[in-house]
């Protein structure tokens, strides 16, 4: 193909994509930005933006960061070995396991979370019941009124995030690992690495891109989630606040919160990818 023929053609092929991006990404973003910096009379203002940084909302934001970070770390701790394990099974087993991992993603996440809240309720009751069987002196908490051990608290929120977003950690890591050239593993063994050495010196560094995208894909939806926190934890995270103001006709404040959250996430992502590039180029 020569360039003169390719130019207009590829531009033509890209047109739907560009149109899509403009209509559904750029214009809405512009609206968010516009609303974030205006008041009800559409006059320019920074009050909404600056309100994000008041202790009240900053506290909610930091709590969101904390829970999302914990959930992300747990997903990584569970997801990395899981992905490694899947990538080492036979090709047929891999197909089955990947489908099993993806299966929950085909269920609506609201329904999944709702179902999880029922499950946690049952587990909570079971724990309370088991505790009630023990002699009273051994039980560290009061059983009446019924305590919330694994539900309606931060633990439940983290469980919910892990439950809902774990596949997004496993799949990108698995995808990188399944493409990993097995001869590199053998080369490392040949040069004296035992199983752990192979993992640390070859598999881990080569799977960093998958880990980074897994972290992104778990952390971003976790920090901005608005249903999990409410349904499972009975607490408000930054996503719930945005949701609340949006439905209570304070679009400007909702937009301002979204906007700042977005900028912070963007900065975080850029920083992380910088780190990933360094890793790839070698540290020497």
């Amino acid at each position, binding site marked *: 193909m020569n360039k003169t023929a390719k130019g207009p053609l590829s531009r033509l092929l890209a047109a739907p994509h560009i149109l899509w991006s403009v209509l559904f990404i750029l214009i809405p973003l512009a609206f968010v930005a516009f609303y974030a910096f205006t008041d009800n009379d559409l006059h320019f203002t920074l009050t909404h933006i600056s309100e994000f940084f008041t202790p009240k909302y900053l506290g909610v934001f930091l709590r969101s960061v904390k829970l999302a970070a914990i959930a992300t770390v747990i997903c990584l701790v569970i997801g990395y070995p899981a992905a490694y394990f899947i990538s080492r099974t036979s090709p047929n087993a891999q197909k089955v396991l990947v489908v099993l991992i993806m299966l929950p993603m085909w269920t609506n996440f609201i329904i999944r979370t709702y179902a999880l809240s029922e499950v946690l309720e049952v587990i909570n009751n079971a724990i309370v019941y088991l505790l009630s069987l023990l002699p009273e002196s051994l039980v560290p908490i009061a059983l009446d009124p019924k305590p919330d051990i694994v539900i309606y608290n931060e633990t439940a929120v983290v469980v919910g995030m892990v439950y809902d977003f774990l596949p997004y950690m496993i799949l990108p890591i698995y995808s990188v690992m399944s493409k990993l*050239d097995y*001869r*590199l593993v*053998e*080369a*490392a*063994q*040949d*040069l*004296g*690495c*035992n199983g752990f*050495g192979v993992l640390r*010196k*070859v598999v881990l*560094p*080569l799977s960093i891109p998958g880990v980074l995208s897994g972290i992104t894909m778990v952390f971003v939806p976790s920090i901005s989630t608005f249903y999990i926190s409410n349904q499972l934890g009975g607490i408000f995270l930054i996503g719930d606040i945005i949701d609340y103001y949006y439905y209570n006709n304070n679009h400007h404040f909702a937009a301002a919160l979204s906007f700042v959250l977005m900028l912070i996430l963007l900065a975080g992502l850029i920083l992380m990818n910088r780190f990933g590039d360094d*890793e*790839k*180029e*070698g540290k*020497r």
Partner: protein
Amino acid sequence: MNDNVLVRLKGVSKAFDGEPVLRSIDLDIHDKEFVTLLGPSGCGKTTTLRIIGGFVSPDSGDVEFSGQRINDVPAYKRHVNTVFQRYALFPHLNVYENIAFGLKVQKVKKDEIDRRVKEMLELVNLKGFEKRHVGNLSGGQQQRVAIARALINRPKLLLLDEPLGALDLKLRKDMQKELKRIQRETGITFIYVTHDQEEALSMSDTVVVMADGAIQQIGSPTDIYNEPINAFVADFIGESNILDGTMPCDFKAKVAGHVFDCLDSGFAPGEKVDVVIRPEDVDVVDVKNGMLIGTVSGVTFKGDYYEIIVDVQGFKWMLETSDFVAEGQTIGLHIQPDAIHVMKKSEYSGKFGDYSTFSDEMDHLSDVVEEEE
């Protein structure tokens, strides 16, 4: 006690999915030897190497290293290093880090690593490449990094799986010399896998010819070439005319209706045998002086000689001659006693060594010659 046997395979067999890939391999490899495993694709060369390296465990039989059975020793504990087919360099590390890998694993001191990497880079002619990314190196350079990465560990044994397979002819020749030099200088035992017979003959102390998961012949390059043990080896190593014959008595072989003097003995009178005659060992003479008479059916100019196909009673011979003969010409063939190699019949008899199937390839080649005339 076999003084200097480094590796010994004893009745090693291996099957994949019920398909036998190695059939009871027995092989001794001596210290400081350059041994080549040679054979067609799929004959089990790589599998043999991987069994020695510890990446595949044999179904039966023993692998011994310096007299110790090592069947159950994992790869990372063996004093063996491998240069993998297509290198398998670590893409996340630069040249220095790739070469230093094995020493770092062994927790060798930093300044010693520095010194030895430098030494290796010198040995493989890659001085100044330390910081280069392995992805940006040429095939030949990657090759040399792979060799340095293995050699730096000073293994007793180096396994090389078709290490030059991906290189062009010129680079291949250079690397062959370089590898041979490295082997001589370091005194490390090399087991070298290739399916290029020229490479095998020019580099090795010992050649192991394999086919269908079994060793056909073990010997020095000259032995293998001059005294092939069966039709397969004769055909695989160089060009050969392989004919059905009989041994009426010792030192006589009857081929194509003519009784030749030969140097072989020890066959039963009248025993059916395979007879190998190399193309360069036949003299083209006048019809009246010929032991056999044939018609030239193809001529290919090869630079310093002509390769001709001669039809003798329906069997097509390949010959090499320095004098031009024309297609269609009738010529005589004269064969000295030492050019006749008699072999026992084997499962490979009758499968190789007739150049009538060669004619397709010959046709278009001889067309070129005709046009030049």
